[in-house]
């Protein structure tokens, strides 16, 4: 037989994946796939699944190997050239601290979660995509760990990131988010991480943040970031395919999916609040404000997406208007939180200088001067008097998102938002309508939240005193607190002085 014509990519991919699975007969299909029915999602025909990217394993290995060769070449060069001395300022390293302690362990959680859906969804198409995503997520954890490893050799606050992630109070925000997704059924996990997080929200995490890394001279981080983002593009197409597939399969799926979209949008929005303060306050050289990023990536891109999904009856996530309105506030509120709690974190904080404050006024003309500059001025004054402001106690957490109850009423930035529910005779407190709704929908699940402040009072965090708790968190003596005068600050000054002397000669 003569060699036949090369097959097109769609056809080739179909042959190499579809049909690999089979209807089992020696064991019941429901025993082989025990988890994909209890959520109430109805799938009538898995073959209707449209494969988003059609990567066979050979192409996957080829492209990913090439990306990795490039990435590790940059990481090696960065270390050899002591690239850490070329960043804009050592304050920037706090961005990496927040990232490594708060985000990288969640990449790992996503890896295990997609292994779960990659095994337990009944259709072969989504399973293959999930498995590749599982591998990608492991990649992201590992490349982040390897990149930031070099910074760990010189700067504090990175060394115990893994233990910190399991124990530290503010890190229960990302941890509880991913624990929530991991413990949800396979379809909810796909909507939570595949759709809400990957499609709707991660651009906000990676693109402006990584551009920020580039702008601040951190070439190794920008390389892992953008390299990871190229995998994210595959993940995004998986996320959008999942939601379209579920909505097309059966009309009964719509209300279930809508509830998940509402829930995970709000949880994601709260989690990404940490990114907002990173962008507006922690990057010494700024690329764009959180508000601008939200406009581009949620209002504009998310708007297009949800307009597209309207044809299935899916609505914009509940409280999206509140989220957009809150963009005027959350970065300032959360940076204020970090500033006054930095002594009990693994991060440094500092007061923005005048130039930075003017940038904030310009980016947030409606709110910054009116509400937030005055409190920074008080703190600056206290700092000048030698009484740097710290919050000297434990505080109230939202039972759902686990952030301190710091957010304000949607129409009144001078009033803290308190919401409450009663369940089986007990009070539960929430920072927002969104978080209250999430609890009220599944109180049986959220009553077991490992809330860090509650756990301290119950005696489960190393002991009753603050030093006991900080030891349990494995914080070193120089990990947190005010940046000015810190070890990181002194090291940076010593490098800069050496460079300056060198230039002067």
């Amino acid at each position, binding site marked *: 037989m003569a060699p036949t014509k090369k*097959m097109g990519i769609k056809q080739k991919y179909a042959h190499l994946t579809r049909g690999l699975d089979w209807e089992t007969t020696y064991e019941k299909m429901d025993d082989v796939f025990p988890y994909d029915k209890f959520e109430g999602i109805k799938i009538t025909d898995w073959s209707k699944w449209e494969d988003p990217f059609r990567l066979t394993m050979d192409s996957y290995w*080829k492209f990913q190997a090439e990306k990795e060769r490039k990435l590790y070449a940059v990481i090696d060069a960065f270390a050899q050239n002591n690239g850490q001395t070329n960043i804009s300022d050592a304050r920037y390293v706090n961005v990496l601290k927040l990232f490594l302690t708060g985000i990288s362990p969640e990449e790992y959680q996503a890896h295990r*979660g997609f292994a779960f859906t990659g095994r337990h969804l009944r259709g072969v198409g989504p399973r293959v995509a999930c*498995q590749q995503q599982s591998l990608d997520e492991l990649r992201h954890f590992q490349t982040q760990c*390897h990149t930031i490893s070099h910074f760990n050799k010189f700067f504090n606050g990175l060394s115990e990131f893994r233990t910190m992630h399991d124990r530290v109070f503010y890190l229960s925000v990302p941890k509880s988010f991913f624990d929530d997704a991991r413990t949800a059924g396979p379809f909810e996990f796909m909507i939570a991480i595949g759709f809400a997080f990957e499609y709707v929200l991660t651009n906000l995490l990676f693109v402006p943040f990584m551009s920020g890394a580039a702008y601040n001279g951190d070439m190794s981080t920008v390389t892992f970031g953008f390299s990871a983002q190229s995998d994210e593009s595959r993940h995004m197409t998986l996320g959008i395919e999942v939601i379209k597939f579920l909505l097309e399969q059966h009309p009964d799926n719509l209300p279930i999916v809508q509830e998940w979209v509402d829930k995970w949008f709000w949880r994601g929005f709260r989690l990404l609040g940490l990114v907002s303060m990173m962008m507006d306050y922690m990057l010494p050289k700024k690329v764009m404000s959180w508000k601008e990023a939200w406009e581009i990536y949620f209002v504009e891109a998310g708007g297009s997406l949800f307009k597209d999904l309207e044809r299935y009856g899916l609505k914009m996530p509940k409280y999206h208007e509140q989220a957009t309105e809150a963009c005027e506030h959350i970065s300032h509120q959360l940076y204020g939180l970090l500033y006054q709690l930095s002594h009990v974190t693994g991060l440094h904080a500092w007061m923005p200088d005048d130039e930075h404050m003017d940038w904030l006024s310009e980016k947030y003309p409606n709110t910054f001067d009116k509400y937030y500059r005055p409190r920074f001025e008080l703190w600056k004054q206290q700092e000048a008097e030698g009484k740097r402001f710290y919050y000297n106690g434990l505080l109230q957490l939202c039972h759902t998102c686990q952030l301190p109850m710091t957010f304000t009423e949607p129409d009144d930035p001078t009033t803290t938002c308190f919401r409450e529910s009663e369940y089986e005779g007990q009070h539960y407190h929430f920072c927002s309508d969104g978080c209250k709704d999430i609890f009220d929908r599944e109180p049986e699940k959220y009553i077991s939240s490992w809330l860090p402040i509650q756990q301290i009072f119950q005696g489960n965090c190393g002991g009753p005193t603050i030093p006991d708790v900080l030891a349990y968190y494995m914080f070193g003596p120089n990990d947190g607190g005010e940046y000015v005068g810190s070890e990181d600050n002194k090291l940076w000054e010593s490098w800069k002085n050496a460079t300056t002397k060198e230039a002067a000669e």
Partner: protein
Amino acid sequence: MTVEIKTMDFEPKRHTFGHVARRIGGDKPASRYQEATLDVQATENFHYRPLWEPEFWHYDTGKTKVVMEDWYKPLDPRQYYYATYNIARANMNQSVERNFTFVEDKNLLGKLSDELKQKLIIGLIPARHVHWGSNMNTSEMCQRGYGTAFTAPCMFSAGDHLGMAQIVSRIGLELDGQTGNGLDKAKDAWMNDKAWQGIRKLVENTLVQRDFFELFVAQVLGINGVILEAIYNGLDDAWGEASLPISMLSEFMNDWQKEEARWSHSTIKIVAAESAENKAIVSAWASDWINRAEDALRTYTAAIAGDENIAKTYADKERVTAKSLGLEI
């Protein structure tokens, strides 16, 4: 100018992360494998019980009967992390491509008799489903297992089995003139042909196995060690003049088998050596799954090669391997 640069202090404060240092015996430079693997999975303070399996936390050592004081004892001798894994596979795949090009250029499969082509389609191509079942098992071990040292290589293995399922599928397409008809026929054989039913039953039995380490033993010593070994190495006579191109096109599988065994065998050895109880449990699993694999293989080799003794040969070989890992068989 170069004089002053020496005054910059580049002496590292520490050489690796704290959790890695505690494992490698102090603060010293750690390998990328170590930093990518050791203590990576969360271990405590989980928030909610899984809605889909509330009797366990999502990371829970209770999902197997064997007990390890530390699930970071079974390390990967290949020291694979994502980058080294993918680069290794991309390299292996280059020879796959060369081999396919060679076989296509020389029309080595195209010129076979229709009878032999049909024989291969029925006798070999259904192996793609064995790999797919194995892919499901290794994904399951990754999701259900405990500790990154164990679970990360399981996911690599899942990628490998998918890759191998696709290589077998490509062989099928070479045989059916790139129409896909051969793949359909092969699937029909997998579902209905007597030759494959023992193997299919074995694979389906593993798909409902809940104990992640028993599943590991069943996969490694049963499916990989007996079934796949025999399919790729034990049927040369049956394939006749196709045996050379088939061994070329399944070179990846043979290379993979040797390489993967360095890790999977070492893992079984270490877990069994942990305690007398573990040894007894793992030995019993190994005996059981090798026996079941032998039974399953017998019908297959009898039908395809007209020789049911091939099954015993491969099962016995695996029993020797199991003993060499410290198991009592």
